[in-house]
């Protein structure tokens, strides 16, 4: 079973398995630190709930759910 990054709730962590090829922003997302095998934690949900802030590689990055859904992860809890 595969999960995507946008499914994580605040406080939950996951490890990135792969980023979907159809994601147009794949390069950009990788450059911001969302790369394979990286651990990601949700630290903040936005007011609308359509955007989350993630802690990855010691930086905090805000990402829309519509982009995060291309990032496949395994949930770490």
């Amino acid at each position, binding site marked *: 079973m595969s999960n995507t990054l946008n499914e994580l709730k605040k406080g939950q962590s996951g490890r990135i398995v792969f980023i979907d*090829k159809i994601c*147009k*922003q794949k390069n950009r997302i990788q*450059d911001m630190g969302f*790369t*394979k095998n990286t651990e990601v934690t949700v630290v903040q949900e936005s007011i609308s709930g359509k955007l989350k802030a993630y802690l990855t590689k010691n*930086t905090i990055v*805000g990402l*829309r759910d519509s*982009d995060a859904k291309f990032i496949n992860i395994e949930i770490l809890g």
Partner: protein
Amino acid sequence: MNCSNNTVIALAGNPNVGKSSIFNALTGMNQHTGNWSGKTVDVAYGEIKTKEKTITVIDLPGSYSMLYDSPEEKITDDFVLSDDYDCIIIVVDATSLERNLLLTIQILQKTNKAVLCLNMIDEAQRRGYFIDTDELSLMLGIPVIETSARNKYGIKKLIETSVKVAENKIMTYCVNDFKMLNENSISDEELTEQIAVLANKITKSVVGVKGEVYTKRDRILDNLFTSKFTGIPIMILVFALIFWLTVYGANLPSDLLFEFFNLCKNYLNELILRIGINDMVRSLMIDGIYTTISWVISVMLPPASIFFPLFALLEDFGYLPRIAFNLDRLFSIFGTNGKQSLTMLMGFGCNACGVMGCRIIASPKDRNIAILTNSLIPCNGRLPTLICLISIFFSSNYYGYKKSFISTLILLLLIIFSVIITLILSLILSKFFSKEKASPFIIELPPFRRPQFIKTILLTFKNKILYILWRAIIVSAIAGVIIWSLSYFNINNISLLEYFTTILDKYAIIIGIDGTILAAFILGFPANEIVIPIILMSYLSGAMLTDYNSMSELSSILISNGWTFKTALCTCIMCLMHFPCSTTCFAIKKETKSTVWTLLSIVIPFITGSVICFIINLIYDLI
């Protein structure tokens, strides 16, 4: 390579790692820095003079990747591939080495004439990080220098080492791992993945961690600033406070400056009488140039001196990216993205800066929309005009604190109205100009940093406020001459200015203002600061030349020339929405490289403002 007596050193790195701070520390220059990605979008040049030679230092805009997709990142990419430098200082944030290594490795694939600058080392140590710099240097093939730009720590060593690399006195090499990356021909995606693996490997072997970057304090602050219940209210409160401090704080200094200039005016008049200069020249100097300059200084300078430092402190603290995070959803509903809110915020300072700042928006469509609508945010040249009109017409029945609260509230309402119009226009434009899907929004939320209060305040004073003052003097001197000439010279006893305003009257009346006000907006094209002085001068040139010594006399001049609540409201709206000033127009032309977009940026706000004022006028007449 460059000639031997001039060494060129460039600074590259991720956004918000302190490149500009390092640049300032290296060159002794004073560029303002901020705690957010995208503060520097253009290249800055500086110099270090040593006994032997002059070193040129180039501050490149921040970049996440050499596989660029936004214009400011392309600058870095092109530069690294060019041969225009002797050494690149790769500035990295020591607290997030792994992410920073992604770009570092990309650069090192292309060149090894580089030095790694491990900046914010003090912060990293405070947070419990230990970095083995010798090991890191071995793994990267270049020297590694620890610095803290804030405390000027390690700067001297950084210069020395960079010069040695530039002169080939320290040999750098391309490590095998990076060579391998070059040899395999693989797609960009795979390349990024492999680089990430390398970055992870390097980080694991050189960094020891005992703490956490995202501290409890950051967590609490982020909860306050971005959570469902407190995010937006706090944002509004923060801005209400800044505007209130600006409105209230500027009051007294403004009055004092007014009085001071008036006092000087009397002495000047006397002096000129005694010297016996002819009356035409006297009138030009005093009624034209002096009056305009004194107006601009007393009305513009106090609010600017309060607003700019406050805003700079907010920037340094790291609050701005949180605003973009909060507002992204709202902006995406209107077809653009949250980064537009950052460029709008910059617009409060100066629309030309706001337009330049739009480089942080990756998608060309969103970028152009943000550029086009930026002038709807009242810049520093227009904010005082609004404050002045509000205090005369909308909050004149109140006094003291109460007046300042009411004024701030009305100012906020006007700005919110402008933001709403910006959003609506963005929606229309995004529907109209492209079928491209809404662009992605990825934003870094940096750790909160305590602003360096005194340094920031002194710096903004030196950089911004003296600049504004200088510009105001130049522009108002020129404008003063023009307005004075237009009102002094006449045909058949009717001044040129009157001809001009009479022609404009026909259109102006439809939108609730008069020809003089419209003429002032047109003549204020070089700088919006001079709109009110133009209005006053043309009113005064017709009637007996009475002097205005204070706000109250100012209000009586306006009222005696037919101003009502409606006139003031429509003037405020037109002040928010007419056309960008000449400087901003140049910036728009430069950024969009399109005459059509530039023309649109002039026409669209003007039509919008006219339509809104027309409706106000209509409703007002009906009541």
